[in-house]
């Protein structure tokens, strides 16, 4: 019995990633897109037409990461206009910063809009309540993964808690189904102030494929202030970890 467990331990060795910030993902990963304008517009127009969530505009050329599902099909249509890099640090503090323009070389993370109390109250420890409202379970699994043996976000005092009364903020996933809208609202209002609101995954940010579905009710996002937007389909655990970490940092004046 004990011998068996020792064998398992030895086989697995150290699993945690010592420096989460130093990780570079595989070349295949589709993260931040680099856009380039071209005179000839046929390719990009074809890509914009094919895009299932209408994330691309052609004049001027932009790509909205809050709508993008990172399927990579536009890059195949218009390789001269769009190139996805493996940059996974996609977090933004303002919704409009998720719209990438031609010439942008890195995601924008505007620290000036971060409320100072976030660092003051949550810099040491942050407990979050996750609510899935029509999420397809992939973002939820990635959020679970942030606490697993590899990423171990808990080492920085960030974790997920069961009761909203114990939470410092809410992480929303999914396009917000009508049937969940009320429960989501109740949950958010059960969290004591000060609190943060994190919107995780492109489907939560824009509604994604379900943006115009009659079964979806997105009024929640019109009512409350969002502190962090995390695109992705699903959001990579490292994108979540990076975003939350930067949100909690003390800002120099």
């Amino acid at each position, binding site marked *: 019995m004990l011998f068996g467990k020792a064998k398992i331990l030895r086989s697995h060795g150290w699993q945690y990633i010592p420096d989460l910030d130093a990780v570079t993902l*595989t070349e295949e990963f589709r993260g931040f897109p680099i856009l380039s304008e071209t005179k000839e517009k046929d390719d990009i127009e074809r890509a914009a037409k094919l895009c*299932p969530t209408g994330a691309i505009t052609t004049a001027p050329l932009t790509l909205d990461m809050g709508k993008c599902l990172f399927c990579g099909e536009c890059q195949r249509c218009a390789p001269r206009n769009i190139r996805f890099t493996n940059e996974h640090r996609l977090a933004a503090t303002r919704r409009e910063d998720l719209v990438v323009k031609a010439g942008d070389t890195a995601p924008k993370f505007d620290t000036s809009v971060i409320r100072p109390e976030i660092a003051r109250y949550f810099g040491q420890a942050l407990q979050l309540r996750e*609510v899935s409202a029509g999420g397809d379970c992939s973002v939820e*699994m990635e959020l*679970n*993964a942030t606490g697993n043996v590899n990423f171990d976000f808990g080492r920085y005092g960030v974790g997920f808690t069961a009761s909203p009364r114990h939470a410092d903020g809410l992480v929303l996933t999914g396009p917000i189904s009508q049937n*969940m809208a009320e429960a989501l609202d109740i949950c958010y209002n059960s969290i004591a102030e000060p609190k943060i609101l994190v919107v995780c995954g492109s489907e939560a940010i824009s509604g*994604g494929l*379900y943006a115009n579905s009659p*079964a979806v009710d997105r009024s929640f996002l019109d009512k409350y202030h969002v502190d962090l937007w995390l695109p992705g389909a699903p959001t990579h655990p490292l994108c979540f970890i990076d975003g939350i970490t930067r949100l909690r940092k003390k800002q120099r004046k």
Partner: protein
Amino acid sequence: MKLYYTTNNRASAVVLQDIPVVEYMELYHDLSERMHDTRYHVAHYFATEIENGLRFFMLVLDDETGEVLITSFIPDYYAEGLASLTAVHPQFHPFEREMHELYGIPFDSHPWLKPLRFSHDRRDRSSTMDSYPFYEIEGKELHEVNVGPIHAGIIEPGAFRFICDGEQVLHLEIALGYQHRGVEGEMVKSDNRLRQTLIAESIAGDTAVGHATAYCELIEKLAGVEVSKSLRLERMIAIELERIAMHLADTGALATDIGFQLYQVACEALRTVTINTTQAWCGNRFGKSLIRPMGSNHPLTEAKIELIRKNITDVRRRYCELREDILEAHTLLARFEQCGLVPKSEMERIGGVGQAARASGLKRDIRHTHPSGYYAEMEHTPIVKSECDVMARLATRLDEVIQSADYVERLLSGYAPSKDIAAPNYEAQLKGEALSFSLVEGWRGEICHVALTNGDGRIVKYKVKDPSLHNWLGLAIAVRSEGISDFPINNKSFNLSYCGHDL
């Protein structure tokens, strides 16, 4: 008169005219008899709007011959109601409930005619999530425990109501629908087939490969295209990788719930290796973007073949060590054995599918009974257990991971990057006035998609069935007479999809 059109999972789409329109009572009597034989079970049953009424379609699977029986009927508009098949064979319950909810069809003597998922286009708008008619038992000794819709962990929402006598669960009722996003409606809103593929991938994010494969096979049947052998093989590798990853996740989740941390962290680590392998293949840890109609954007390269082989061999070795230890861990066995029994007879009655059905001794596996794609070219032996308990549901996972890893290793040994994998095709003309279906064994079980096209070859109706639709009732039965504290391990042993059910 012929009651069914007989086809199989490899044949091309069926012309609507070939599907017989039968008298409902005739069908009712035939099915009442036929379904007593467990080789048959219902794969799909739905209604669609036609001029002046509704046409009902039903797909019944014959596990012995691999045949798919398709039939339809058009009830009289003024008919008072239809005799309920659920009253005779409970496996019909989710389908009849759905049609009742959407179209208000009364199914006479249906024992449980409750809302299924509170879809946005339900007929009775006054019926809402809050007014779900939970079953009640009165008694001084009894109490109710209400859980959800938001659960303690990071999982999807669903409402569970237990009626308990002390610690013992007398009854569990599961009310779903919170995840309803309108998948089937969105599927036919636009003809953009890339969009449809992505919707299929989002039906249940943990089964992205399974549902995308089901969508693509359905489209290929409608387009009359047979994809190359290499593409079939690569799709099979993708779906087996998904199976490995999710079975690893569930092994870990079961260990978590009994506080067995070593197994939990070992499984987390193994799953990370597996899904990172998928990510190195296609750029997404869940295999989204990997499966595309008629082709692939990510044909395997020399380096990727090598990487998958190396990683899966390693995962298999480490999981074998874990498996051996699990099978000897008496504290774990004490919790899992003889807990959450769903006897074979019950599993048959509710029409259980997939891994959970196999744990109850039911040899139901699409890869074996109705193979399509590369599975049609090989012999697959389903892993079946007879114990019917939580441990059996874990044991099927323990064995299926090894089996799937063996498949991946075997298929990739000697496989060279192929030149006959085309780029995806989102434009092909589809057969008009036809019904196309696909059956795929996802890691949970039988996925069934059905589409109807109009004269122009446009998809006008799309129906999705995730295996969870059958199996949720299995979970409710499993916890009956168990201690309420054993609910989590029962839940994890099934690990059913909320969004796949709610659509």
